[in-house]
């Protein structure tokens, strides 16, 4: 692999060595044995591999960017090399009617055989008018394309669970693919953005075994989302020994201690971030000193916030949105209970005084 001083690969074509390295990386992520590797390489280089139609809906193109603009472009090129991308609004050369014609002809020629990748949430409110491409709503496009595919890969948290668009109050009624469509197998590669290796592994699994990898209860592949971030975190020993960063930039933070008290959501988030990491340079959020925000989980924008505190706040009923931390609310209720107990006890004593009752009423 030739690189210049900036670390960019100057070769335009993907060479075999890089191709095999990429396949080996994906095979390792999938947990495949050595025996399976030649089969995987064969499937990935077969000229008869299924094409991919990539649909963009309500999204920021961050998932595509994460795939294509890795620190050096091997993974991105590998993906483009392995999958035969017939329709992808960000990278295709065609535009306008020509692009839509590409989509239509792929649907006809590869009916029931192509892979459909969905990026972005699908707005459903008001007939889905909040996301339109070529005069059709996202709902209509999905209804047209997804049933003709062999399988659907929802890439990113938006396509998986609705993501940021679906955060309360969800003005456009955004939902993930699974909420609308389940006539074909749908797999969720959640994350904001997801790791390209998780996507690559899923595609290679499909090419090699003609089916999607096994998933957890939320439809995410177990090879990538089977374990919590916390359980593979490099800062975990600091957690076990009770060493924490209390504030950003304090001595504990500089020492590389656990970010638990800064609201790291690693203990409640499933992903392979600590092991696979990003951009091929071994970087990932917790590694560089910022806690996990739980972006692979459904409704993370609503349930993982505040990002810099351990637990969500409790909204106090009747106060129109005033919230308080769980412990402060709990201790206030405890205080009210203590006051009630005090009043109750005082009332009992007071009543006894008023009635002037003798202290002992029973004569055993």
């Amino acid at each position, binding site marked *: 692999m030739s690189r210049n001083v900036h670390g960019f690969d100057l070769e335009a074509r993907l060479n075999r060595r890089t191709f095999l390295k990429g396949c080996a990386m994906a095979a390792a992520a999938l947990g495949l044995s050595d025996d399976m590797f030649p089969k995987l390489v064969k499937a990935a280089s077969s000229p008869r591999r299924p094409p991919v139609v990539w649909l963009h809906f309500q999204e920021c193109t961050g998932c595509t960017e994460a795939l294509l603009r890795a620190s050096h472009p091997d993974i991105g090129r590998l993906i483009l090399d392995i999958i035969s991308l017939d329709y992808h609004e960000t990278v295709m050369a065609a535009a306008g009617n020509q692009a839509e014609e590409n989509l239509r002809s792929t649907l006809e020629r590869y009916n029931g055989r192509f892979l459909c990748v969905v990026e972005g949430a699908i707005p459903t409110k008001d007939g889905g008018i909040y996301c339109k491409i070529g005069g059709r709503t996202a709902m209509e496009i999905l209804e047209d394309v997804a049933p003709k595919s062999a399988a659907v890969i929802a890439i990113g948290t938006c396509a998986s669970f609705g993501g940021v668009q679906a955060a309360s109050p969800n003005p456009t009624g955004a939902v993930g693919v699974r909420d609308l469509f389940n006539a074909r197998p749908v797999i969720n590669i959640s994350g904001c953005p997801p790791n390209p290796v998780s996507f690559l592994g899923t595609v290679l699994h499909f090419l090699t075994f003609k089916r999607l990898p096994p998933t957890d209860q*939320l439809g995410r592949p177990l090879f990538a989302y089977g374990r919590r971030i916390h*359980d593979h975190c490099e800062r975990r020993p600091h957690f076990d*020994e009770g060493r924490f960063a209390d504030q950003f930039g304090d001595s504990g933070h500089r020492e590389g201690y656990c970010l638990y008290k800064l609201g790291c959501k690693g203990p409640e988030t499933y992903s392979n971030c600590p092991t696979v990491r990003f951009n091929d340079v071994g970087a990932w959020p917790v590694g560089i000193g910022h806690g996990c925000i739980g972006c692979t989980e459904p409704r993370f924008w609503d349930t993982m916030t505040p990002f810099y505190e351990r637990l969500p706040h409790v909204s106090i009923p009747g106060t129109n949105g005033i919230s308080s931390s769980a412990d402060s609310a709990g201790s206030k209720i405890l205080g009210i*209970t203590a006051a009630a107990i005090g009043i109750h006890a005082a009332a009992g004593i007071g009543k006894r005084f008023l009635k002037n009752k003798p202290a002992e009423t029973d004569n055993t």
Partner: protein
Amino acid sequence: MIYERRLAWSVLFRLFHWFFALSIVALVVTGFYIGDPWTNTTVIKEGKIFTMEYMRYVHFIAGFVFTGAVIVRIYLWGAGNRQEKIMDFLPVTSRNLKNLFSTVAFYLYLKDNYEDRLGHNALAGLFYLITIVMAVLQIISGFYMFYPESSFWQSCGLLLFGTQGQGRFLHHLFMWYFILFAFVHFYIVVWNDIRCQDGLISSIFNGRKFRPKKV
């Protein structure tokens, strides 16, 4: 009036009570640490004390004790003695509904006499039922976090609470129910022991209560 001492609570019931109570104390203390730990750097520089690991270890052991105690109580709902069976105190029968209102009136100082019962009164029984339901929810949310890679617990957790994050949040909120319950339980028991003649507090140690002897 002449009183007689009668067996109210079986040994298993009393064991349930004390294992339940002591495990709650251990769970709340270690749970508060796990939820908001102190930072060891300010106490010891070269810490070889696995504080969080130890707290979690105690929390998990206590959690299993708590689970065992709850299973015993649910078993006694069906298989315990007369006082321990669920229909003896659940306010669904007319006898227990009447008792519920008379107990509330008694607790509000609206009447001075109370229905003499060997087992729970209906108000207490209602809250003990709620407590066991809360305990079951607490156990499920706990195991949801304890076995994060088990698809069984993941299905239960997702169905009842949502993601791991929400399960964790609810686990923390439910803890406050047990703190409040312990507080109120303690007060009402002492209050009853002062006002009534059945020897309520000692009954959870020796299982016997005092009842007026029928002549």
